[in-house]
């Protein structure tokens, strides 16, 4: 049964691949589905096309007769069908082979293996000599990951409930452009049709199920869309800050790391000996970091940072 089906799929593929012109549905039926009833043929033919397409076989639909446009025909263009000449060298092919071990996500692990099978069929020999590599792993545990990825690949709009901060979940309608990982979390980038603007959503904040909200191909991803850049643009801005702090000896180790200068034995506000640390760093909230060290860290300058720390402490003590 399965062998018969394989044979039929292969023959359909070969038939459409070797013909220069579109092949009519009628001719396809005569040759490959001769024993089937009308209804069975329609069903089988639809499913067979879908299975071939899911493997990456580009089946084109067109008309065989310019005067009778309602008579559809099918073909596979050899140049669209074949993998472009990639010519991987032996060391490149080995790196590509290692890629199969990166994904810890069933669907993408399988897609990678399939890709590598196609790529290595083209001929390159593996050369597993001394590659200095530590194998990274990529997981995607968020249940909505697959649906967002699929939607972005197929240009299919989605609808889901999304919880921002402490607000109640809100329904969002989005055209996904891609998924991005940052600090171990996955985000989807896309066009929010309610807000009429691009937005980034964290997958772990999606509540409930993500559903399709339109047919595949219902929108275009703008040319040159760089999902990483958009995610970065919408992230909180880090400002480069130059600060002078006093730290008690032996404390605030993360602040000392990468400091410009550290000077010991400096007299502090309480008359004790402190370390004077000068640092320049890109940070979202240096006041919060300094505050976490409590009375072991003291801001000398800039004035704004000092004021922010004092104001926040006054907020606690008022």
């Amino acid at each position, binding site marked *: 049964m399965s062998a018969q089906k394989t044979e039929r799929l*292969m023959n359909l593929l070969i038939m459409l691949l*070797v013909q220069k012109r579109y092949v009519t549905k009628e001719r396809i039926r005569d040759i*490959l589905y001769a024993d089937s009833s009308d209804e069975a043929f329609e069903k089988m033919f639809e499913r067979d096309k879908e299975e071939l397409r899911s*493997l990456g076989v580009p089946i084109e639909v067109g008309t065989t007769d310019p005067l009778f446009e309602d008579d559809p025909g099918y073909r596979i263009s050899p140049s669209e069908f074949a993998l472009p000449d990639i010519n991987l060298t032996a*060391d490149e092919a080995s790196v590509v082979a290692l890629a199969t071990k990166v994904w810890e996500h069933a669907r993408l692990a399988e*897609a990678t293996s399939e890709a590598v099978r196609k790529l290595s069929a083209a001929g390159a020999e593996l050369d597993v000599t001394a590659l200095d590599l530590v194998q990274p792993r*990529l997981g995607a545990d968020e249940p909505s990951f697959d649906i967002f990825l699929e939607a972005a690949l197929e240009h299919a709009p989605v609808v889901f409930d999304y919880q921002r901060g402490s607000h109640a979940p809100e329904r969002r309608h989005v055209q996904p452009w891609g998924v991005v990982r940052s600090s171990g979390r996955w985000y989807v980038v896309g066009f929010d049709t309610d807000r009429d603007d691009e937005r980034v959503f964290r997958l772990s904040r999606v509540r409930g199920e993500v559903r399709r909200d339109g047919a595949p191909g219902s929108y275009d991803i703008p040319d040159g869309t760089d999902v990483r850049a958009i995610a970065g643009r919408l992230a909180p801005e880090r400002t480069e800050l130059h600060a002078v702090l006093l730290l008690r000896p032996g404390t605030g180790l993360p602040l000392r790391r990468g400091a410009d200068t550290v000077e010991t034995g400096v007299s502090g506000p309480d008359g004790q000996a402190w370390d004077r640390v000068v640092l320049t760093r890109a940070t979202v909230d240096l006041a919060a970091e300094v505050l*976490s*060290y409590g009375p072991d860290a*003291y801001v000398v300058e800039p004035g704004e940072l000092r004021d922010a720390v004092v104001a926040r402490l006054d907020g606690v003590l008022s």
Partner: protein
Amino acid sequence: MSVRQPVQGAREQVARLLALVPYLHAHDQVRLDEAAAAFGVTERQLVKDLRVLFMCGLPGGYPDDLIDVDIDALEDPEGDRVIRVTNADYLSRPLRLTPTEATAVIVALRALRSGATSDATREVVDRALAKLEQAAAEGTSTPLVDPGDAPDAALLELRARLQDAVGRQRQVGLVYYVPSRDEESVRVVDPRGLVEEAGSIYLDAWCHLAEAPRWFRLDRIRSAEVLDSMVTTTEGPRELAPGIFTQEEDVALVTLDVAPAAYWITEYYPVEAVRPGKAGHHQVDLLVADARWLTRLLLRLAPYARVIAPSTYAEAFAARARETRALYGSVE
């Protein structure tokens, strides 16, 4: 649903045949066992595949139209077991990558690039990436997945070294930064395993300093030296669920009043319960193993989080805040 099932049945066989024919084309005199190994299937399965291929070909129906496979060479005891397929030139090129395949392999390679520990290897990955990206761009779609901030190569190297120590059951000397105490500690541990949770990698180990099992976050390990001495404790790695902070003994349930600006802690730390309160505030219950840790967290969040109960934690926090504020004197 839109999520496709793993390749199986006829679809899987077609996928294999479409890769097998180009493979045989590109390599000379491939024997059955070599091809079976390359495709990860049994020789028997491969002969089955080839028997189906033997039935396929051009639609004319004449013997010359069919693909020819030398089955005798494979099945005859005297056969040389070399796979010979002829009359299949139109299948000699591998199939184009689907958008999902292109995305998956390119993202995996970008991740691999970040694991490269030498410039020479990085250069090889870049070459491979450039070729694949070009091949993908010629197709219908470009990858829409970004694996994100490249994990630090030093961290990956540390992970590999610790993994090796786990495998060889060697003790490890650690210098470890403890944020709640703001100090670096030196200790010898028996490593048990590595786990990943919410973007951080942890070493699970028996700590000979604490004489208890401990988790060590890799980005807080300042140095790790794999020792020659064998581990002296034997227990498998622990389950990391539901959260590391609940693993400790002597935990206290603390209730906080959290303003919207500090609400992010409910996503960052495992919390026991969240209840909405007035004016966008929430009551958050969390388990606290170390009072110093909580005080530092509250200082960091100041003034957007307060302790509702127990009052000892509120007092400890207020005392620390007062002490800090006193350093600045009276501000005009």
